[in-house]
């Protein structure tokens, strides 16, 4: 299965950069696996949908803020499990949700993964509004677990 692993977030916005850090480690560990492609981007909505074009399965690694779990908690779910609170509406002032964007793309006959094949590995964070290139201690400590969670998903 053609798989793309994407680190999402802003690498200079504190814990928001955790997705990049995880995927940079995945890149080192999968360097000899040509069937696995990795990338790190700061995209959402339509732009992220465009990046997923042509892949059957995608793993997104990102920070999450639920405020309900201990910092550093690693969760795994698929896009299908995420409630699309936007009801197909614009999710921010500028863009639409990834689910809505994927629906738009599919209606254009663009080859895109199914929602259940967009897998998400999320790390609970809190400090995502302060510029910094370093992760806070509890998030740094969660890196090995997050890397393991991704590797388990791509095991044959």
């Amino acid at each position, binding site marked *: 299965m053609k798989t793309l692993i994407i680190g999402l977030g802003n690498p200079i916005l504190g814990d928001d950069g955790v997705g990049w850090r995880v995927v940079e480690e995945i890149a080192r560990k999968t360097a000899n696996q040509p069937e696995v492609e990795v990338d790190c981007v700061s995209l959402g909505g339509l732009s992220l949908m465009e990046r997923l074009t042509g892949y059957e399965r995608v793993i997104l690694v990102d920070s*999450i*803020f639920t405020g309900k779990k201990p910092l550093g908690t690693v969760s795994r779910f698929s896009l299908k499990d995420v409630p699309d609170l936007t009801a197909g509406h614009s999710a921010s002032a500028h863009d639409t949700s990834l689910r809505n964007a994927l629906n738009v793309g599919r209606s254009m006959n663009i080859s895109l993964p199914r929602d259940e094949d967009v897998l*998400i590995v999320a790390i609970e964070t809190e400090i995502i509004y302060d510029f910094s290139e370093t992760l806070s201690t509890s998030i740094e400590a969660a890196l090995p677990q997050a890397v393991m969670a991704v590797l388990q998903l791509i095991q044959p």
Partner: protein
Amino acid sequence: MQRITIDPITRLEGHGKIEIFLNEEGNVANTYFQIPELRGFERFCVGRPVEEMPLLTNRICGVCPEAHHMAAAKAVDAVYHVEVPPTGKKLRELLYSAFYCTDHTTHFYALGGPDFIMGPDAPVAERNILGVIHKVGLEVGGKVIQMRKFGHTVVEIIGGRKIHPCTSIPGGLTKGITEEQRKEIETMGRWAIEFAQFSLKAFNDIVLSNKAYLDLIVGDIYTHKTYYMGMVDENNKVNFYDGKVRVVGPDGKEYVKYEPKDYAEHIAEHVEPWTYLKFPYLKNVGWKGFVDGPDSGVYMATPLSRLNAADGMATPLAQAEYEKFFSALGGKPVHQRLAIHWARLIELLYAAERWVELATDPEITSPDFHAIPTATPTEGVGIVEAPRGTLTHHYWTDERGVVTKVNLVVGTTNNYAPITMSIKKAADSLIKKGNVNEGLLNMVEMAFRAYDPCFGCATHSLPGQMPLEVTILDPDGNPINVLKQYCE
């Protein structure tokens, strides 16, 4: 006193929320709109080589990285006192024109368009890009995706990377383009012109020929008679990449025109105790509160402002649309905020025409795209027109070119006061004697969408929505009613 709060509850507490205070009669006393602000950027930059700024600043915002890259590139040129050769400038402007086409297209079709194409009264579930595609036809969706793809491709060819360009350095760019690339860019640009004309025609057919929509645009809810800001070229025509900043008054006459380096003589920032973000205003007019009129220093910087602040467009097709625009809306300046959507499409056409002009410029493939800086770096200002408003970067360095201070005035910040005023006016018209009209959330959202503000530039953490919650509280602060949108 009643208190109404519109709060993006799944983001950080106390950020990006709207509070509406009612008086004893149940009418609006005041509104407070807080925008989340990313913190510590200046501290993050100090101590770094200034030439890193075009790379760092394009990570400030997930929506317009190209705009920050360009403003930073120009500020860094100024810091090094280096003049970019004509080919370097043209390549940057070519990249920037393609970016504008992508950005304005996305805004119109995905965000602003649904209000008009589906109609402001359509159910929320239909008032979105999918609804637009179903109504206007699948073919349009394909064109929107194609436009975005072409825009991204030009950014990648000239900027080295899609969306987050990396080729601008002090004195120009790290690389030029080949004749083969030029041809490809020209072909895509010609398609972009057709697409822009198609979009204006769709706007004309669907919106302007519908009296209800036209009434909405020219209505009073989002009308404010303020000053308008925009960059102009030497002929006072709209320019996104270079020129002087021109400000016209509520009467449409030129109030001031200044060089980017002099911005601090004209722009000051007002501080309110209830928000971290500052409100820029015209220093020499003065801050008089959230009011319009010639005595209030509040100004707007949006596509509509740029059209108001200029004498016209520098390309022929866009100029014709410019004339039609002002003729249809009763002459200059246009004060109705919802006309920003129409102005945006005229700018789309201009950007596409400028794209082709630059792609067919004999100098565009010249290898003379960079001048090596030789002067000692000091300080510099770079200004471009971001799609959402005039974007100012100001850097100070030591003699080694290491950053000692940074000041940014970003697109949305310019419009913070006018957005606050539009929210107040929408609330005024929809809340009477304690009765809150159900359309309040939508009218507030329509104000957001017209200005297209950057809320903390959040492409970031999941869940990434901008939920709104309106809480109405009685005089003692007890909630008596809650309106929700995008909330669990």
